[in-house]
């Protein structure tokens, strides 16, 4: 009797998890399937599978806005995102190396400040930054979106790398010093290679957050030629005639695809990155 109850409980949980998970995912599946339906069919038929499977939404959607295709928007997004990833990895790893492996005056004070910046809402920095970039003539360029990232402005990645680098035994550093390596060599040829998992995680998370970013892209990019995927997609919302829904869905799916691919291949790193630092040890 007890075994039966045990099996029932496990079964019930399994079913619940599967069912609830399906409900959670269903909107995504619906959007995917709708992207292959002609626009009229999307909201008129309830059937999940396209009755009139078509790729036309993808072709129409790709045409983009006023003659600028999504090739430009995807290119812009990729350029910005890659620049941000590189900048973040370099600057955050340098700071993390300093915090975790070097000693200097006021180290703890600065570390606490760095932690503090994690909780700071971006709004209090936003307007003066905009004024600064306006003064420099950087509005409507990629510079406001990329340059700050070369200065480790997102403390989360410094924190993540610090947690990881702390697990690298100091003895390795000491024996390298004995062998005559200077600090720069230790950073570049010793600590960085050993930190690759955390660097991958940081890079992946940076990619995801930057790719999804909308607000800063919205305020700094005014010209269609500079639009990223996020900003371009928003333009579809403005044109809410029924005929453009299919195109809207198809480009939305396309914009989510890089994220999904990254997730498939780097799931492990993403999950480690999210739980890192929030769990001790």
């Amino acid at each position: 009797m007890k075994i039966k109850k045990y099996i029932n409980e496990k079964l019930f949980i399994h079913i619940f998890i599967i069912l609830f998970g399906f409900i959670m995912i269903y909107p995504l599946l619906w959007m995917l399937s709708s992207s292959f339906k002609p626009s009229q069919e999307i909201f008129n038929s309830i059937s999940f599978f396209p009755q009139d499977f078509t790729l036309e939404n993808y072709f129409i959607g790709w045409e983009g806005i006023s003659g600028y295709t999504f090739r430009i928007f995807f290119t812009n997004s990729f350029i910005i995102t890659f620049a941000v990833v590189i900048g973040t990895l370099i600057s955050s790893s340098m700071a993390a190396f300093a915090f975790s492996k070097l000693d200097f005056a006021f180290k703890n004070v600065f570390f606490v400040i760095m932690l503090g910046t994690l909780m700071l809402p971006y709004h209090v920095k936003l307007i003066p930054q905009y004024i600064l970039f306006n003064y420099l003539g950087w509005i409507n360029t990629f510079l406001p979106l990329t340059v700050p990232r070369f200065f480790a402005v997102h403390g989360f990645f410094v924190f993540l790398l610090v947690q990881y680098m702390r697990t690298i035994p100091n003895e390795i550093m000491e024996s390298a010093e004995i062998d005559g390596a200077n600090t720069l060599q230790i950073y570049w040829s010793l600590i960085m290679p050993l930190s690759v998992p955390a660097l991958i995680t940081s890079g992946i998370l940076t990619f995801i957050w930057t790719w999804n970013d909308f607000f800063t892209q919205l305020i700094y990019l005014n010209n269609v030629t500079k639009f990223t995927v996020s900003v371009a997609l928003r333009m579809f919302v403005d044109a809410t005639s029924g005929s453009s829904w299919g195109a809207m869905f198809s480009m939305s799916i396309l914009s989510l695809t890089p994220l999904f691919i990254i997730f498939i291949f780097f799931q492990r790193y993403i999950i480690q990155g999210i739980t890192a630092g929030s769990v001790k040890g």
Partner: protein
Amino acid sequence: MKKWLKENWEGYLFLTPWLIGLLVFTIIPILTSLYLSFTRYNILTTPEFIGVDNYFRMLSDKDFIQSLKVTFKFVFLSVPLRMSFALLIAMLLNRKIRGLRFYRAVYYVPSLLGGSVAISILWRQLFNREGLLNQFLSIFKIEGLNWIATPSTALYTLIILLVWQFGSSMLIFLAALKQVPEDLYDAAKIDGASKLRQFTNITLPMITPMVLFNLIMTMINAFQSFTPAFIISNGTGGPVGSTLLYSLYLYKRGFTFFEMGYASALAWILLILIAIFTAIIFWTSGKWVYYEG
């Protein structure tokens, strides 16, 4: 001085990019926005000092008060809901079941994609008049509202969206649950504790530090939510201000009306509000958070 320099220069060398970033992109902007909050400034002319006028203006600014109401409602409904689902599913998944990795991925994917414009667009199409939800309801012959255009329901679409993304919180809880030492449960079983007792007296207390951390970070992020409100209301915060989240209102004042002095004041009020609520959570945490040792 020379000795100090010699002992510290390496640390500071590697810290330099972050230090520059801290100064140029954080500290100076924060101080500047504080100054600007006491001015009238539209970026074309020089700032005009007007004292505390901006702050007084807020008291009688209907939109400001509306955005506060909307944001409070949004944060204090969606955050607890999101944490509850995260904890529930984490509890369910915290056992050796086959396909754990798959289920974990399924629940996490919404969190991965959720912050994007694409998902906000999807959400519009889920809840508008011809949307998926109403299609589903029509199976039961129920005629659904236009959820995103009805003032009493529009905000709930945003709340649902935030709760839908509970996957990242769930991952953190899963990791926390895994860290609860097995021998605690063993000892409790020997003492004859029921499953429920085990949960309330072992599991919950042991993960409370993680719950606290997650709660604060989720709350801080929720206060700053912008993209869904913007996309779903098409930048208006409507209908009739029912989706006017604080970030959206600040954006309107600062970047469509270019009232940058007022927007700076709004930013500082947000900072103060977040600080207050974070402090409240911290101070009351002593009562429910259990720290080992």
